[in-house]
């Protein structure tokens, strides 16, 4: 008996140690990332931008169950907000922290603008209309030369300043993005658990029954579109301030598809899945640089394999943050 309990407590101590090491490793990677080479920091910035985008789109696709294929439009609205309000284009030079909420609010307005006509639509039809919306925004940006600079885009965008310090290196952006991802991630998680999150889930499960219990599906859906779009806008503002150059080329349909893929491959409706998906889909093509011209083909194969092997995504919906916390801290 004694030896069994000793063995068990030894096993338990091992497990605690393993978990502590895991948490420590994740923290170390997050904190030491900026010390790595510039290439890696840039990659980390990229991952974080897509985490942010996917967190936003996941509200609509994962929580409310509405397939939106035009999410890049809100990213573009945010990016052009910064580009036009902090560049010589109109000679307006608003500070970064002022444009951040403006870009988010403007994107939210576009979210509602898109939301209203697609309210009665679901599934394939919704996907097609949102896809069209994404393209309309891109084509508008391409053709409104006088405002957006047309295909040439907007150049010489201001360097963003935070508390007086110019933010110019990928390292600085890493901290900014990490901070915003943590804040947005926390808010999104709290939204998911709130009564609104449950109302979204009800709409996803059975829209008609949701109405039957008194849920105003119009408002609840528009809230999803608006909040989701505002996160996309936030990501856009940061993207523009980081690139210091925007053009319609950055906001093609491919971007929307990439963000949807991140969610689907990572795990629909699960924040952990979204993060995992962003890491996987942004890092994977870099790892495949070794196979040069076959890169995209290999990427396609890996995606197909992932969907077949893990149809619920890398992290299934059931393994959410609460499960992770329980797993990490359970005795």
């Amino acid at each position, binding site marked *: 008996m004694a030896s069994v309990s000793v063995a068990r407590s030894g096993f338990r101590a091992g497990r605690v140690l393993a978990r502590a090491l895991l948490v420590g490793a994740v923290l170390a990677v997050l904190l030491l990332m900026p010390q790595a080479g510039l290439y890696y920091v840039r990659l980390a910035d990229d991952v974080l931008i897509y985490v942010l985008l996917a967190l936003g789109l996941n509200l609509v696709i994962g929580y409310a169950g509405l397939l939106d294929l035009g999410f890049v439009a809100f990213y573009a609205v945010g990016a052009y907000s910064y580009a036009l309000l902090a560049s010589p284009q109109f000679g307006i030079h608003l500070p970064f922290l002022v444009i951040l909420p403006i870009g988010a609010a403007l994107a939210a307005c576009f979210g509602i603008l898109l939301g209203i006509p697609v309210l009665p639509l679901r599934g394939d039809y919704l996907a097609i209309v949102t896809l069209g919306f994404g393209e309309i925004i891109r084509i508008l940006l391409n053709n409104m030369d006088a405002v957006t600079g047309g295909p040439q885009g907007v150049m010489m965008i201001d360097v963003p300043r935070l508390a007086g310090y110019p933010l110019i290196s990928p390292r600085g952006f890493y901290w900014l993005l990490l901070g915003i991802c943590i804040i947005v991630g926390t*808010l999104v998680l709290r939204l998911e658990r709130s*009564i*609104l999150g449950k109302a979204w*889930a009800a709409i996803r499960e059975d829209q008609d*029954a*949701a109405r*039957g219990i*008194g*849920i*105003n599906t119009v408002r609840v859906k528009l809230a999803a579109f608006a909040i989701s779009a505002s996160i996309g806008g936030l990501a856009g503002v940061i993207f523009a301030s980081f690139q210091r150059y925007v053009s319609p080329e950055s906001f093609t349909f491919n971007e929307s598809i990439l963000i949807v893929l991140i969610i689907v491959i990572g795990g629909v409706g699960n924040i952990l899945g979204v993060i995992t998906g962003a890491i996987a889909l942004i890092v994977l093509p870099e790892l495949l640089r070794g196979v040069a011209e076959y890169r995209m083909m290999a990427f396609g194969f890996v995606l197909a394999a992932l969907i077949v092997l893990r149809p619920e995504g890398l992290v299934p919906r059931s393994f959410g943050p609460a499960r992770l916390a329980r797993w990490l801290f359970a005795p």
Partner: protein
Amino acid sequence: MSFAFDHVTKRFGSVVAIGDVSMEFEPGLIYAIIGPNGAGKSTLVNMAAGSYSVTEGQILLDGRPLQGLKKYQIARAGLARTYQNIRLFDQMTVLENLEVALSPTELRHTWREVLVPPYATRAAARRRAACLQLLEEFGLADMADTHAELLPYGRQRMLEIARALISGPRVLLLDEPAAGLNSGETETLKHRLLRLRRPDRVMIVIEHDMELVMSLSDQIYVLHHGALLFCGSPAEVQANREVQEAYLGTDDDLDSIRELARHRRAGRGLRHETGVVAHHA
């Protein structure tokens, strides 16, 4: 409080599903609406809940017509329903299925819930306690964290009724609550439904199970071909010849039905025997 159908007609194209039906419901009583298949019972429920529009006439809750209100507004006005085919939120837990039904009053505090953690904790605890109490009454507390789709059929029915109740409705419409239940479950259902009687609540049950209808309801409305055939107490309905004919046909029909049943029984016996023979061979 009052609830009534006032000369309600529903036409689908040229088909009259409900023709000039008037019904009045007193709070505190349990009503049953019965009638053969196709009599228009579900059409009435669907009109009341706002799923169907009303062609003519009015459905009045507290003297106010429900027409023009959206489905969610009707629910918020205090009318809750269950469905003939159970409609739960399958991928949500039993508890969440109830919690989300509290959202009409809670949604406006969402921002507080997201931004003020202590408020969120309190709100979640309050919702949980209210829902758990009801789950307890419906014998579902032990499965509070199970996904609704994993519940056995009978308990799904109970959950659906609990979900309709959590908002404290003044009109409760139950569309065939006993469908698919075994006799033990039906008995439990009856006792639970009897306890749901409130002085300020109209309960309306649409049901085929006559034993349940007769033992449950205070007043019965009989529909036939979209028209009101009879209204009375269970005893009066049972004694009424017109109702019996609507349900079972005339005596002549009854004989032919019995004949048919005998044939079918005989046929099944025959098939069974040949099956046995085949097995032995």
